[in-house]
């Protein structure tokens, strides 16, 4: 089989999973469109047509929210007017902005799944990482030069996130406490901790009654890639890409990565081979938390600029979907994060323009996970022949028996 067809085959299930997920999402939009559906008795064609029109509008808004208007981009580029260009390409850069934390969280989930651990708590690790960065930035403000604050904040985010990942890893290795439960519980605790921290006037935005931190931008800001007004795509995105490369290198080119993968497939065989199974769990979860925390840190000192409780907004959940979609490959995580970034960014515009709540995306993500994890469903729906047994790829998430 040629490389191209093999690549096509490998991509078929993920792509069709997303397409099918969006189709089901459309059905949900139609079914909840009571304004149109209430007329089904008097004008069935118009009612259904209108409802489907609503879907088209919604997904259209999503598309333009994610990618902008090509003709407008071209025109703007021709005129060369900075402000115009910025406005025209803003949807694309915002998609990349949305993809940045998704890459981090996706890598976090992928690395834990590779090691046979289900990190369901990337949300909490991301939030606490962000809290770490926020506190560091505010504490260091005006005391040291901005670049030092930048590095220290990212470092703090990574360490705090890592610690929040270490905890479930350690508990699993030492006591057998299942990481699914501990990571979920720790996410609730993390949210409450952030809420608690944001009560402090030291952190909270002046005059705000809701739990939102001060604007960190005057203190520290990750440099932007394109210096045009209104664009906030910054070098955090580049760091995300570098991390994907680093994780890939770690997993496949280093002995530590070998240990993680071995533990993910068979703890018992890993132990017999002289590896420390508990150690692999702890390392994997710590790295996982550190990645998520770093992502959160880069959000608050970069693209978002302040800490609030809805900073994570389900990124941890989406990360599970995209990590599985990516077959737990770091390169795949980047691609899937770009796709989900587009969905997220587009979903916001969809919310604004067609009134379709953003939360529909969670439902679509759940379907995507389901289709990727049970490819038989997709094969059945789209009448794809199943692969010969030898070609089926193994991922620890689907093969490893949860401990």
């Amino acid at each position, binding site marked *: 089989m040629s490389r191209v067809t093999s690549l096509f085959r490998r991509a078929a299930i993920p792509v069709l999973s997303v397409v099918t997920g969006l189709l089901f999402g459309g059905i949900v939009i139609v079914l909840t469109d009571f304004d149109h559906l209430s007329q089904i008795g008097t004008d069935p064609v118009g009612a259904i047509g209108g409802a489907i029109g609503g879907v088209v509008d919604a997904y259209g808004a999503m598309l333009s929210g994610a990618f902008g208007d090509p003709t407008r981009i071209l025109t703007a580029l021709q005129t060369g007017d900075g402000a115009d260009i910025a406005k025209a390409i803003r949807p694309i850069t915002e998609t990349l902005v949305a993809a940045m934390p998704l890459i981090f969280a996706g890598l976090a989930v992928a690395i834990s799944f590779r090691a046979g651990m289900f990190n369901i708590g990337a949300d909490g690790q991301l939030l606490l990482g962000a809290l770490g960065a926020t506190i560091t930035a505010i504490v260091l403000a005006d005391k040291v030069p901005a670049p030092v604050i930048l590095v220290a904040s990212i470092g703090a985010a990574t360490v705090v996130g890592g610690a929040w990942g270490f905890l479930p890893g350690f508990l699993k290795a030492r006591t057998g406490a299942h990481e699914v439960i501990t990571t979920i519980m720790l996410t609730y605790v993390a949210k409450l901790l952030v809420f608690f921290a944001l009560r402090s006037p030291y952190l909270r935005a002046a005059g705000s009654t809701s739990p939102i931190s001060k604007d960190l931008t005057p203190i520290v800001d990750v440099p932007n890639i394109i210096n045009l007004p209104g664009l906030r795509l910054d070098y955090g995105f580049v760091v995300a890409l570098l991390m994907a490369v680093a994780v890939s290198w770690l997993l496949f080119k280093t*002995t530590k990565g*070998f240990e993680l993968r071995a533990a993910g497939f068979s703890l018992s065989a890993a132990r017999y*081979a002289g590896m420390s199974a508990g150690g692999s769990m702890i390392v994997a979860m710590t790295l996982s938390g550190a990645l998520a925390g770093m992502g959160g840190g880069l959000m608050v000192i970069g693209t978002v600029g302040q800490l609030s409780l809805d900073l994570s907004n389900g990124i941890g959940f989406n990360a599970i979907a995209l990590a599985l979609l990516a077959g737990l490959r770091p390169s795949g995580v980047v691609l899937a994060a770009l796709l989900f970034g587009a969905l997220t960014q587009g979903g916001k515009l969809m919310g604004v323009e067609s009134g379709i709540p953003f939360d529909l995306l969670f439902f679509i993500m759940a379907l995507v996970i389901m289709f990727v994890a049970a490819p038989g469903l997709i094969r059945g729906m789209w009448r794809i022949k199943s692969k010969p047994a*030898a070609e089926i790829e193994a991922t620890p998430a689907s093969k490893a028996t949860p401990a």
Partner: protein
Amino acid sequence: MRLELRDITKQFPGVLANDRISISADRGKVLGMLGENGAGKTTLMNILSGLYKPDSGQIFIDGEERTFDDPVAAIRAGVGMVHQHFMLVPVFDVVEAVALGAETVTGFLGTFDRAAARKRIVELSEQYKLEVDPDAKIENLPVGVRQRVEILKALYRHSDILVLDEPSAVLTPYETEELFAIIRSLAAGGTTVIFITHKLNEVLEVADDIVVLRRGRVAGTADPKSATRQQLANLMVGRDVELIVPKGPAKPGDVVLHVENLQVRDDRLEMAVKGVDLEVRAGEIVVIAGVQGNGQTELVEAITGLRPIDSGQITIGGHHTEKSSPRHVSDLGVAHIPEDRGRDGLIDYMTVAENYILDSYHKAPYSRNGIFDLKAVRERAAQGVKDFDIRTPSIDTYAGSLSGGNQQKVVVAREFSVPVQLVLAAQPTRGLDVGSIEYIHRRLIEQRDGGAAILLVSTELDEVLAVGDRIAVMFDGKIVGILAGEDATYENLGLLMGGASFGGGLAA
């Protein structure tokens, strides 16, 4: 009842497990079914017990054709099955385990009528002299008793045809004798017994008729009164087999492994190794013989550093390793072929190359400073595949897709790819075909002749006698006797494995 199977055929992907097999067994007779691993015995029995459906062929009971769509149909027709791996729920007590699936209920909410079940079990165990405490928990029973529970299970369901699949695998020779007595009394009472085994002596002892399977077909039948072991072995393998692997005399050198007064606990915290003293010298093969579950597993795990010890001393090549990690023990030049290769020896979803370096990945030439040299990995793995004759499409094939024999070759290749001073092989030939068994034995002898000390754990008397230079028999966590290879016989080993001690006399 008379059982007849006619032209049973069953195809699995890539394997013709049963190819037009016809056998019959008369009422009150014991049919011994002989065959090596993979000959199709278990498939045939699964067809008979309704777990599989044959692709073609017929089953007759007392001349009447039957089809078994599920186990219930087979049970109703009077076929009772005693599986090789006991099918008993460990946390149930005997009454629950026996009655499961055939429970009687009293009215309210389908309440299980425990009293009735218990009464019937007590009656049956008295009638057939199957001594069992009906209220004991299965997981607390010794294996011999569990087997009685399995037989009770069949009797409880009024089985007239009893199929026993490798029933002696986990029994001591004494327990095996008890089992044979039970089988004879059942047959005398009119039960038809099918006794599946790969042990030649056993069919000769207990069967009224013998049928030999080979590669899914009936290779021949024999009369136990006149057949010899050699004839049966040839029928079973299909060529002349040497029951003994050629090997020269051992030239024992320095003591490599020294174990003194070792005590080790099992997973349930019970003492499993109760004060073992053992020495293995360079250039000799010491076999730990014994029935499974007498502490061998824990002994080997303790030596490898996988299991913490309670007390005692272990030295390997002069180094104390009582508190060493598995990695440290392995770095001393210890090769370990684990008992459960599928679970512990290999990772199914990693490639042959990755499995080849599974325990030496952290060393040169495979890696430096934690970073792989993938070229070196591939070269060495390819060399290993060649040297050890591993049949695999490529080194990038998942290990899980190889045959059992080739999987074990991957393990052996890995363990023997570096110089070793001590080899710990725990039941390395279990479940393998004769060719692979011979291969493993040859490799072990090769290592011995190269100067390594070999500790082999085996439950198979044939294997023990074939390769052991010295034989230590383990029973109930203790070494009950050590024999020189040439002094060992089926009889004296059998006695020792059943727990008869020769006192201090023969123990080295």
